[in-house]
């Protein structure tokens, strides 16, 4: 049953192919630091534009970014509705439910919404541009134990397998006239055993078979392993890393000085 393993999309872009997964991980971290360092919507908006530019550079379609953007928009609206009641300061705009709504409150609400959008989008772009294989190799180089790395891959494999099993089992029981939606809550609980039971048995079977297959293919037969996936830091990577470090330091400095903030009262 075709179920995607990850949201990674292969593209022949510089970001996909040339940049080391470790650098991309660092970039994601840096975006998070920047997002937390500032709370002025203009600054956060600026960084968001940079992330969207990176997505363009990575040849990602706007459509693939849509789910992340729609999700973020929700947060933006929510945060615009809530924060103005808490954050005051700056010229007042109007009075709502006996509370004065001020410019700073609106701006802060906007900033918090943008902050979430920034993190969600950055994480999305990161996952879409970093293949799980390369990430695993990158993490191994960073000191992740090798068995944990393979366990990660096997787990990624296990989830869709089980999902396919779940779908088949549900279909098979529907064909035996099981209709959970039509049952009262008590019967629904009792009858869902018809799906959970086989799923449980099958997941043990699948786990056992996968474990045997791993062993038959020499998993853990040696200490350590080689990899056909080549990753390595290039000059580009180093320049990016230095730039990221500088940006983070700068952001922390500005935060201490109070620049790029609506208020110091909140993060």
């Amino acid at each position: 049953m075709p179920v995607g393993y990850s949201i990674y999309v292969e593209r022949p872009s510089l970001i996909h192919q040339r940049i080391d997964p470790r650098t991309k991980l660092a970039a994601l971290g840096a975006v998070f630091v920047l997002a937390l360092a500032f709370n002025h919507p203009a600054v956060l908006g600026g960084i968001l534009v940079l992330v969207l530019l990176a997505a363009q550079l990575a040849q990602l379609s706007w459509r693939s970014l849509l789910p992340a953007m729609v999700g973020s928009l929700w947060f933006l609206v929510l945060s615009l509705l809530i924060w103005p009641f808490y954050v005051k300061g700056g010229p007042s705009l109007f009075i709502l439910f006996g509370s004065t709504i001020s410019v700073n409150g609106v701006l802060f609400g906007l900033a918090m919404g943008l902050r979430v959008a920034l993190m969600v989008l950055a994480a999305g772009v990161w996952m879409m541009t970093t293949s799980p294989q390369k990430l695993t190799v990158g993490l191994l180089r960073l000191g992740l134990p090798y068995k944990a790395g393979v366990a990660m891959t096997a787990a990624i494999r296990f989830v869709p397998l089980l999902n396919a099993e779940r779908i088949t089992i549900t279909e098979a029981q529907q064909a035996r006239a099981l209709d959970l939606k039509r049952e009262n809550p008590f019967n629904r609980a009792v009858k869902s055993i018809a799906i959970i039971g086989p799923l449980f048995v099958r997941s043990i079977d699948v786990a056992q078979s996968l474990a045997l297959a791993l062993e038959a293919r020499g998993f853990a037969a040696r200490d350590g392993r080689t990899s056909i996936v080549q990753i390595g830091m290039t000059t580009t990577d180093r320049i990016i890393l230095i730039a990221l470090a500088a940006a983070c330091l700068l952001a922390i400095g500005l935060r201490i000085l109070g620049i790029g903030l609506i208020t110091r009262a909140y993060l």
Partner: protein
Amino acid sequence: MAEPVQLQRMEPAIDVSEVRFRYSASGPEVLHDVSLRVEQGEYVALIGQNGGGKTTLAKHFNGLLKPVAGVVRTMGVDTRGPSVAELARTVGYVYQNPDHQIFAQKVRTEVAFGPHNLKLPPEEAARRVDEALELVGLREYADEFAFSLGRGLRQKLAVASVLAMSPPVLVVDEPTTGLDLQGSRNILDLLGRWNADGRTIIVITHDLALVAERVPRTVVISGGRIIADGATSTVLSEADLLGKAFLRPPQVTRVAQRLQKFGIASDVMTVAQLRAQLRLALGE
């Protein structure tokens, strides 16, 4: 034995007309303009290459999949209306792997699940369970643990638990994979007996030798199209056509066709037939 089904209105058991199907809007079309009519009481084999669309088509019969275009009716009912659970009264569907449906501890409880879901009166349900167990030959296992049965018996249990719902139409998807010859023959014999009671059977399989022995009508699906449909002996002797669906005639048919110049009939289907022909040709 299950009571024979009353065949008053001769609606076709399955009536597929000009059906197109794709799994997702952006995905490729998997069934292209498929039409198929199966009358009540027929026994039909659905054969064809891996990925040809057999399972996809069969899942339309009980409403698990709904056509993107065209209409599917089972016993006269458009499958777009009722839910799968409601259609289960009319169409039974047996999955390939019995472990995808066995959950109860006792064999009897497992078989009773379907009748129970159909909200049959308890006596009626108990009677059907007994009949189904009898029919598949699991009567003496009624109080055993379902999971302790071997693969062949679990397969029969899966069939019994669908038979107990007494559907007039039965679809069986690859019931013989992973079974030995004896197990496979048992299952096909069982389906034959059920069919003799006037019920409609559609079996999906790669085992053409068994089809030749026991199933009267054969439908070949390839690349999402029905490329042949007719009497099994006609369909299975057309090597070129089968080749298109990555199939081959049974071995006896292939051998018979190579011995045609000695007067051996080219539509030989079974071991017994070829043996009889050769006996004739080699005898005085």
